[in-house]
């Protein structure tokens, strides 16, 4: 089975039926519209914009930050998945020392807080790399991406290891009986069966990662969260606080909720009936 922590993070995977959900569009629309609408009536001086007006004014800037959040999430997921598959396969190695080392690395990066790993990368990576005479600048957002990719790597490794372990041992023996090499067994027998089992927890991990991306604002990257704080500081209007945060929460919700529903649907489809 997929790794329990990831399943637990998104929850709702142990039981068979989905919870009674209210329509996502309704909740999303509520988050997006209700608060500004409520506050739009609050009196605004002749020179200042209404609350809705201020939101519209700031939205493009914040949305550009939000796109950076999404870019970081996609890149960190890609890097983390590539490294994690390698680590997960090492954790399924036949050599005990390799297995032990892979286990240690996985446990370390899985149990360390994400924000702490982010601090590590921000402080300890250089601001530029020298490779074969080339100077490769490492801007803050790229260091943050690496910082987020590390825990993703460890979680992907656990997903891979769990999926490989869930394949019945008879499959290995049958492949051997067909005189497939170990490499062929991996490529033709084991991995194709693993992909189905890995997909739902992998998607959950992506949603968790996306929701972790605002952490990069804590270490100084100008993402959507940082933009919201900057906009609020520059306007200095306390009545904007709730609408602005609700707008950002709404955007993340509209992005992550469909992923969660899709994951649930895939889980039901791939569920093995005992």
């Amino acid at each position, binding site marked *: 089975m997929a790794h*329990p922590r990831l399943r637990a993070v998104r*929850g709702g995977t142990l039981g068979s039926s989905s919870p009674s959900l*209210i329509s996502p569009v309704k909740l999303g629309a509520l988050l997006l519209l209700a608060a500004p609408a409520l506050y739009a009536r609050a009196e605004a001086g002749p020179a200042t914009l209404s609350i809705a007006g201020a939101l519209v004014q700031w939205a493009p800037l914040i949305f550009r930050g939000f796109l950076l959040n999404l870019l970081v999430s996609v890149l960190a997921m890609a890097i983390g998945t590539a490294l994690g598959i390698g680590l997960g396969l090492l954790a399924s190695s036949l050599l005990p020392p390799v297995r032990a080392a892979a286990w240690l690395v996985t446990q370390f990066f899985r149990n360390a807080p994400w924000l702490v790993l982010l*601090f590590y990368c921000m402080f300890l990576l250089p601001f530029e790399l020298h490779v074969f005479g080339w100077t490769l600048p490492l801007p803050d957002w790229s260091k943050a991406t690496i910082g987020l990719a590390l825990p993703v790597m460890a979680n992907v490794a656990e997903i891979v290891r769990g999926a490989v372990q869930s394949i019945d041992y008879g499959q290995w023996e049958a492949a051997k009986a067909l005189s497939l090499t170990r490499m062929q067994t991996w490529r033709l027998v084991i991995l194709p069966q693993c992909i189905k089992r890995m997909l739902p927890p992998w998607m959950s991990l992506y949603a968790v990662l996306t929701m972790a991306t605002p952490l990069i604002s804590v270490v100084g990257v100008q993402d959507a969260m940082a933009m919201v704080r900057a906009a609020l500081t520059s306007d200095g209007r*306390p009545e904007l606080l709730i609408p602005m945060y609700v707008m950002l929460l709404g955007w993340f919700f509209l992005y992550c909720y469909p992923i969660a529903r899709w994951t649930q649907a895939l889980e039901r489809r791939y569920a093995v009936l005992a």
Partner: protein
Amino acid sequence: MDDVAAWLRWLNQAHGINLSPFYDAYDGWRFVGGLLTTVWLSAIAIVASIALGIFGAWLQGSPRTGVRRGVAAYVQFFRNTPPLVQLYFFYFAVGGVLPRLTDAHGAQVPPIGSFAWAAITLSLFAGAINVEIFRAGLEAVPRTMVEAAKALGLSRFGVFHHVILPLALRISLPSLTNNLVNLVKTTTLAYAIGVPELLYASAQIWSEEFNVRETMTIMLIAYIGLVGLVVWGMGRWERAWRIPGFAP
């Protein structure tokens, strides 16, 4: 003790490895204070989120559609939005709107401080996931057990109290462990609103001592130790409650 401190000072002077929390009393107490704040914050959030989870799972069995929808909305909101934005939302937005109180010195203070907001947000966040975990546990209790209990003449409450709940809790424990580990890791977010927890205390130390690498490593080991403690404790709980022959 003095010998160890002297050796650590020598290590700093000779090799530039500055493990100041271990020889400098001021840094050491700051670090311990941060660690205790993290433990305290985790403990409050663990207890509150488990209570919320059980209460929410119980409410989801309600015959009223409105109640079930309300719980579902709560769960979906907290599971599908970033924890950091939730924390900022509660601390800056909700906390900013609340009326100020006047304290004994006549200063205007917010009614809920940063530590309390961190505890509230973390409890709500982890509680939402616990609702799902406990609901899944309740659903996973085999129907035959319930039927057998009914056949023995147990009342509706008796069936829930003596059969469903004990089994559901045991089924939920592995997922609960994972969520609580996640919760302990998430307490680091309180750094962002200035709660003096472990990450905050460590950041203070390394910005004064310029020993980022060393302090970060000590902090990371402390966090991994804390997570290990939670895993160990939950493992003991699981073993203590194990029913021979019943494998959830």
